[in-house]
């Protein structure tokens, strides 16, 4: 297992490097010159040259790329001072180190993601399992119907409605905002409650449908029938035999969802005007801010790779057939 984790981690680092290279050269190849953008309309060649020099854009591309990638591991010196590893460079636009900007924004996204995951796992998977257990009953019909309706909603549709009801007309809640948990746990909780719930609602609906269908599929498996043929109670069969197999698709999708959310819940963040990673990524791209875009992209990719490995480890835990000897 350790060997497996090591091998996969090495693979992840290589992937990150390649991803970084592709992003970097694509960005450079695109018709986006930050220097002339920053210089403005009446730009003198001398001024443009100065800006280029200040941003390090006068150096050869390979050198620029190397500076960026090596900075992540070893840190980097800028005219404005030293940037500690992991150094993702300095934003062209704001002049702030990218890493510290990401770290400022990350708690918002992390709270949204984890809060949302708790809700949609407990409520969504729970409702799906209940619906599968009582298949054909009223409970099943309500759960299936509700998840159909809710999963066809969108965050940018549901979000404003919730804001109008709970914030603007009744004033029950403040406008959603992130407060560090260390400052005030209650404000941390209430501050992001609405966006978390709105985002989780959409996911809950999807997880309900997925959990229900994979439980039903598993209940039809022959080994589940064997367990019943042994006289095991239907509850036992449901939770021990069918559940185990139904976990695999759920874990797969969960890994993808969480990792992509950690890389930025763009729609939720923008709908609720939150300053998270997703917002940062959009800003970086629209400002043609190369270091910021690279940084956010690699940050997101890091989570995708980590959760990929975690998902594989979970598979091995769930299914002995994929266990590595």
């Amino acid at each position, binding site marked *: 297992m350790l060997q497996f984790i090591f091998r996969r981690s090495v693979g992840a680092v290589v992937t990150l490097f390649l991803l970084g290279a592709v992003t970097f050269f694509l960005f450079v190849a695109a018709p986006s010159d930050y220097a002339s953008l920053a210089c403005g309309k009446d730009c003198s060649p001398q001024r443009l040259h100065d800006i280029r020099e200040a941003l390090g854009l006068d150096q050869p591309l390979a050198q620029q790329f190397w500076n960026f990638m090596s900075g992540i591991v070893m840190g980097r010196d800028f005219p404005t001072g030293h940037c500690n590893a992991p150094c993702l460079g300095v934003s062209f636009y704001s002049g702030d180190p990218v890493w510290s900007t990401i770290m400022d924004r990350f708690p918002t996204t992390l709270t949204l993601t984890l809060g949302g995951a708790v809700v949609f796992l407990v409520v969504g998977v729970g409702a799906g399992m209940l619906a599968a257990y009582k298949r054909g009953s009223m409970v099943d019909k309500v759960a299936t119907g509700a998840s159909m309706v809710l999963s066809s909603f969108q965050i940018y549709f549901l979000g404003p409605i919730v804001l109008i009801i709970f914030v603007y007309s009744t004033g029950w809640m403040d406008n959603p905002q992130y407060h560090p948990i260390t400052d005030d746990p209650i404000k941390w909780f209430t501050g992001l409650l609405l966006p978390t719930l709105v985002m989780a609602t959409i996911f809950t609906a999807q997880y309900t449908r997925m959990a229900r269908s994979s439980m039903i599929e598993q209940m039809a498996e*022959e080994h589940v*029938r*064997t367990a*019943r*043929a*042994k006289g095991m109670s239907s509850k036992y069969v449901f939770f021990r035999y069918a559940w185990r197999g139904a976990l695999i698709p759920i874990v797969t999708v969960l890994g993808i969802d969480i990792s992509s959310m950690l890389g930025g819940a763009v729609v939720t963040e923008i709908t609720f005007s939150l300053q998270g990673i997703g917002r940062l990524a959009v800003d970086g791209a629209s400002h043609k801010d190369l270091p910021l875009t690279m940084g956010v992209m690699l940050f997101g990719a890091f989570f995708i790779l980590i959760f990929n490995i975690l998902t594989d480890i979970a598979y091995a835990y769930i*299914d*002995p*057939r994929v266990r590595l000897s």
Partner: protein
Amino acid sequence: MTTLTKTEDAPAPTGPESFLSVRDLKVQFSTEDGIVKAVDGLSFDVERGKTLGIVGESGSGKSVTNLTILGLHSPRSTTVEGEIVLDGKELVTASERELERLRGNKMAMIFQDPLTALSPFYTVGRQLSEPYMKHTGASKKEARDRAVQMLEKVGIPQPKMRFDDYPHQFSGGMRQRAMIAMALMCDPDLLIADEPTTALDVTVQAQILDLLKDLQQEFGSAIIFITHDLGVISTMADDLLVMYAGRAIERGSVREVMREPRHPYTWGLLSSMPRLDSDVDEALTPIPGSPPSLLNPPTGCPFHPRCAFRDEVPGTLCTDTRPSLGDGRAAACHLTAEQKQTIFIDKIQPRLR
């Protein structure tokens, strides 16, 4: 079946003293296309220590019958009528809890494909121990000892070590042995084997059949052996029930049915069976046509659309009257006894030799 005395007289359905008696069983599924009459008026008996073979094509209702005995049909879409009495206990009307107590305990099932029938997620040992702990209240340790003992009995080498293996670490034959061990954990009085050797290669098949016979002698269980392999059934069973379209169409002792079959469908089955001693050039004789749809079974005798001897029966008897299966040695066919005799001797026997 060497040590078991063979009853030459018919396995007549003789009232409630039989160990398992099935009476006029009807199983219907409601599907989107309509009602499927999977089993339609089936009756049979099995005695302790005896093996009843059930043969028939796919979709003839063999497996459904046996899943229904265990109560493993889906209650939502299935209606069951008739009577299933196991050792004096009526099963059709029994509650799920009562059935749970019987399943794996008094009656157990060996499934066709041990790869899919064993859970890939738990060790073989755990899957064996579970029903024993549940039905006998044994501790984990006792269940482990019992499971190891059973694994040894079915011929799994190093059972102590194998206890902790997962099914995918077993070979096909070993998995089926483990499956049999699992079915035998609680000394069931009734063992239903649903094509237990179909997924195995021939040498392993023979070993498994020997094993089942030995175990039956030791435990004295009644066995229902489902197969479409007539060669297997002739070595395994005492009595034979031939099913077609959810109905029993011929019944008798194995010897009687194999030597002197009385139903055109059974003739077809036997003629389509390859024989080692037959001429290589001699073509097998398949039964023409295909099994009937159970959504809309043929009127009268369900076999009449495929029956080569329909013209021998006067009038429209075959198409509008369902032949009844009498008691004892019997075949559900409108042909008279003399006709059957003549046809069998003249046309069928030469093909079988």
